[in-house]
């Protein structure tokens, strides 16, 4: 190839996946906000016939934010971080560019069709794994292509040592591959019923308690390898790079990595406390969940200590604010999770609104904040333009931070109220409340959650607008900024 021309990083794939991250983020959060409003105002279920009901929309919300928004964010940041820390450009390999583009289009079309299929009620009815088998096959092909991209880029690298972020992306690749394959083992009902069933509709190869165990081993570790591992990989690159400070302790990052790998996979059974799974397995789930605090806080504290002596940056760089808040929310949700996994606490928390409260302080405060921060950092490098508006970014930060706080506080109160009311008995041992009593009491909290959803969505639109304006009318930069992201 052109060995004389100055070699530069090729951000074309990063850009494409950034667009998808924003598109799927908006769609997923819009649907999330609609279903939150439906919980508060049930009439909203009947606006679009069967297509607008909570049961149709909820899987669209979860799958779009997980497999659409977050996974696009993982791909966008991989094609950026991967090149930079391995010191090799995608432009150096036509093969890897081809694989990357193939993967992009397959993923984009596949994800759109899969979302539409959920709208039409084509679902395997396993939580977070609703896609039917043809879409599962597309997911597998896309994932393998991504694996080829990752391994390929590692294969042609100049930097021999793999930076800690690369380890996390590798773990994400391997973890999701294993989980997705095992949990989605299914047989079309057509083959299981001598032709009576449907070719598109499948049933799990596992049954009863085993199915539940595999499902929650998957469900919980999808959180691990989708919402935790790659996002930690992102912050390990973007926070040091943006602040100009090397990771506080590289050794701690290695230890936290292996700690997370060893511990996370055993914690899934905490979703099945007080159920029919063996007692020792429930205890194991609880114990490992508590131990999980150590590697999680190991990474989070490492990030906060990276800012040691540089805390002034927090006041004058909103991007640092986003990342420090993300890290703090990571700490909050990784202490909250283990608390919920303690058997006696779980007796109150299970099946209540405290659980979505926990999930959302993690995803809204940690995952989305970190992915947005990553895009804010990458945009001036990818488009060679200054961030369009610092003020807009600050306003977005505060609006969304207040939204997250409203979300989780309302759900904490709702969840604990619900749990207590379900268990309340009178002096004769009769249940004191019927289900509808709890619904009446919870109404204001559901309304607050819907409001917080609207606020967060508006914040996301501000983010999308800021990126759009950066691309189209941000001040042009003559050279790539080294550390701090320039913003107007």
């Amino acid at each position, binding site marked *: 190839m052109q060995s004389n021309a100055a070699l530069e990083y090729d951000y074309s794939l990063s850009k494409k996946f950034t667009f998808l991250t924003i598109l799927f983020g908006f769609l997923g959060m819009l649907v999330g906000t609609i279903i939150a409003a439906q919980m508060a105002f049930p009439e909203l279920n009947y606006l679009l016939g069967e297509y607008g009901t909570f049961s149709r929309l909820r899987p669209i919300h979860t799958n779009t934010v997980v497999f659409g928004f977050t996974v696009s964010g993982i791909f966008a940041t991989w094609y950026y971080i991967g090149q930079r820390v391995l*010191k090799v450009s995608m432009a150096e390999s036509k093969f890897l560019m081809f694989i990357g583009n193939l993967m992009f289009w397959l993923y984009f079309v596949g994800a759109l069709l899969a979302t539409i299929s959920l709208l039409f009620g084509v679902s395997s009815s396993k939580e977070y794994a609703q896609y039917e088998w043809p879409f599962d096959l597309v997911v597998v092909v896309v994932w393998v292509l991504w694996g080829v991209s990752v391994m390929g880029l590692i294969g042609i690298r100049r930097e021999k040592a793999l930076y800690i972020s690369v380890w996390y992306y590798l773990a994400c690749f391997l973890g999701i591959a294993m989980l997705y394959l095992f949990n989605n083992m299914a047989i079309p009902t057509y083959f299981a019923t001598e032709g009576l069933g449907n070719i598109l509709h499948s049933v799990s190869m596992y049954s009863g308690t085993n199915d539940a165990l595999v499902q929650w081993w998957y469900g919980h570790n999808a959180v691990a390898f989708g919402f935790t591992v790659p996002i930690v990989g992102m912050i390990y690159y973007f926070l040091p*790079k943006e602040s100009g400070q*090397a990771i506080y302790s*590289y050794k701690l990052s290695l230890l936290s990595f*292996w700690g997370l790998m060893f511990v996370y996979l055993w914690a899934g059974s905490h979703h099945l406390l007080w159920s029919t799974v063996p007692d*020792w397995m429930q205890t194991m789930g609880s114990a490992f969940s508590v131990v999980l605090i150590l590697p999680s806080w190991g990474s989070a504290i490492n990030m906060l200590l990276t800012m040691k002596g540089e805390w002034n940056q927090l006041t004058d760089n909103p991007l640092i604010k986003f990342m420090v808040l993300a890290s703090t929310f990571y700490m909050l949700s990784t202490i909250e999770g283990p608390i919920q996994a303690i058997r006696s606490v779980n007796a109150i928390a299970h099946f209540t609104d405290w659980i979505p409260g926990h999930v959302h302080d993690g995803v809204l405060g940690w995952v989305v904040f970190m992915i947005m921060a990553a895009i804010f950092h990458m945009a001036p490098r990818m488009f060679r333009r200054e961030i369009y508006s610092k003020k807009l970014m600050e306003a977005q930060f505060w609006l969304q931070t207040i939204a997250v706080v409203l979300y989780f506080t309302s759900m904490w109160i709702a969840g604990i109220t619900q749990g207590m009311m379900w268990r309340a008995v009178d002096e004769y041992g009769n249940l004191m409340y019927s289900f509808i009593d709890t619904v009446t009491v919870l109404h204001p909290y559901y309304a607050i959650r819907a409001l917080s959803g609207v606020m967060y969505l508006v914040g996301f639109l501000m983010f999308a607008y800021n990126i759009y304006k950066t691309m189209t009318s941000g001040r042009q930069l003559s050279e790539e900024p080294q550390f701090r992201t320039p913003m107007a």
Partner: protein
Amino acid sequence: MDMDLRNLQGYASFAMSIFLVVMLYWYIIHLYRSEKKGERDYEKYGKIALDDEVTSTPVEDKPASEREYKEENK
């Protein structure tokens, strides 16, 4: 029989947990000891994120033989 298998699974899980704990503690000792002996300097890898231009000198270069192979195949 069923009960026996479950018990066995429980004990295996316990033994595995202990094994993993020992491994992790051993890993901490390994990290600090190899740094103390001067065999490795882990903290230098933190620089990979900061100095990450495509023209930057790698913190740890790939062996010359591997690089030549790559150059030939460009």
